[in-house]
């Protein structure tokens, strides 16, 4: 069974980050912005055209693309 990812969370749902399956620049940026294993995120909304998504974590709002969210694994 495929692991649950941030992309699978619907607006209004929460999840705890398990791991980030991205490499390079995007991975470093996510880490800097506090998206690291163990943090709880809340999916607030999807952009009007369907992408990107807005998540809330550590008290602020961050937007990222679904293609990247699909590589962020959520704890089951």
């Amino acid at each position, binding site marked *: 069974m495929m692991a649950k990812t941030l992309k699978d969370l619907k607006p209004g749902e929460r999840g705890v980050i398990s791991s980030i399956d991205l490499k390079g620049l995007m991975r*470093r940026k996510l880490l800097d912005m506090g998206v690291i294993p163990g943090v709880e995120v809340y999916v607030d*909304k999807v952009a009007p055209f369907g992408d990107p998504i807005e998540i809330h974590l550590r*008290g602020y709002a961050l937007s*990222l693309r679904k293609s990247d969210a699909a590589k962020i694994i959520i704890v089951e």
Partner: protein
Amino acid sequence: MEYKIALVGNPNCGKTTLFNCLTGSNLYVGNWPGVTIEKKEGLVKNTREKIILVDLPGIYSLAPYSVDEIVSRDFLIDEPPDMIINIIDASNIERNLYLTTQLMEMSIPMIGVLNMMDIVERKGVRIDNELLAEKFGFPFVEISAQKEQGIDELIALVEGEVVKGAKSVHYPTVFPSRVGTVIHSFNHSVENGYQDILPNYPGLFRSIKLIEKDEVLQKRNAEEMERLDAEIHTARKAIRTISGQDVDGAIADYRYRFITKAVQASTKVIGKSHLEFEDKLDRIVMNRFAALPIFFLFMFIIYFISITLVGGATSNAIDNLIGNIIIPQVAGGLKSLGVADWLVSLITDGAITGVGAVVSFVPQITVLFIFISILEDSGYMARVAFMMDKVFRSFGLSGKSFIPMVVGLGCSVPAIMASRTVGDERERKLTIILTPFISCGAKMPLYVMMASAFFAANASLMVFSLYLVSLFVVFTSGILLSKTVFKGSSSEYLLELPPYRIPSAKNTATQVWQRVKEFLVRAGTIIFIASVVMWFLQNFDLHLYMTTNPDTSILATFGQFIAPVFAPLGFGNWIASVSLISGIAAKEMIVSTMSVLLSSVRGGFTVALSSLFTPLSAYSYILFVLLASPCVASLATMKRELKTWKSFGFAVAYQIGTAYLVALLVYQVGRLFI
């Protein structure tokens, strides 16, 4: 004694407001060397000593992902300030403190400033800043920059601390002791065995960056990193073993663990959060169905007010003032003083007219800047980038590129400068090349003139079609260029959506004034010089004698020479080409040149126009003007932002080439039907 202090913080944390508070109006805006990022310096007000405050670009971390971050980091290492004021958005405290933990490794005395305390209160939270000070090792003060609360206390504290003259400090390490040991023993080996490697770097910072295999060091100091390869490898392996994860993940994790612990200990929720208004606003403005229409409504209002209302009212009035009052008065006065005719003409037709072209544009562009500043500071612009990202991704850009293009509807000069917010270099360049395709306000007089002369009943439809054409060109060019010259797909998109805020009037005014000033100085000077040059070309013939017959001027001769080039586009007459060339100075000049050149034709201007154009060729002409490279001020800005002549040359060639092609197609295909 003179002290230098750096102001460092995340984007959107109110740094600019704080900078303005601390320096009053004593500021200087320049540039960081080699890059087009603004450097702001000012003197802190109300102090006994001279304290210079340097505003570093807003950054999320000292890791080198963007020019902003590299500039800040280089400054802190190469010109270490006497103190760092780290401004922190307390309503978003954890992520802001991440940068803090990195700054602590620079061994420079620090003061933490918790800003936006008014929002923290509204969220029902209380922060114990003394406990934070205990955990982090340096003082924390609470302020609200926008409400100007706590500023005097901050200034007093800053001055008190900085005159203590602490040379270098050691703040608590954020890493657990086992990892700390690894880093310290690494630092020891470097200090004892490799004294020549990065000696000017603070020890702790240097060690961590080397162990992290930092990108900037990899580029600039590859050889040193090679020599330390064994030590780096050992340290990385040790950290991997201790943490159970990759080095970069582990380091970020440790930082945030330290932060979370400190924040949890010093933060207390004491009441309910009262941010319902912002939430409701967000629901409406970003609603799936309402978002785009609301955006277009905002844009329409902004353009209607700035260009139609303000622009219409003021540019006519100013043109009138200059043309019918100032110029005749000055001309009369000068002539009565016996000034030579050519000099009078240079001053009135050249210089004053040139200045007039810029000045008449100032009211509308000021209003435009006000709206844009409000959109940015309110947090709405970030939402717009969020909303448009999917669309822009389809042609090789990201939502962030939308903002410069929106600005470009007013004037290309600030639009091209706004491309700095697009992080990725490839995207930034592409944005700069595409933005001028968006019609700027200065081209409006031409559209209006042509529209009323040739398309009377359908004038607004014609103008609307122009915007559609420009959107189409931007879209297809984006796709084409992303597949060829600017190969690559849209980069890492990760955008913070700052909370909705009501911008302070004072901040907006300061920002707008600075931008108008920059526009006046940069665009103004260039357009002015270009107008004078244009005057010369229009009033002198090839023998460099002044001529009263415009047909024999240098410009006319040149126009006649290149006119045939435009024949396939339907306007191969020299008046059309000469007017086009004059548009290089400022787009408003196309209309004025044409009216001057046609002033001798009997029957009036509209009749004269009809002798030069048909509706089809008029449309083709407008399309050419719409798409061809912008005025000389924008060209200069483009060159600055693109840096190399190669990129600039390509940009100009592409823009003019596209303009020619589109006008050609429209005219030739149109002829088959009309």
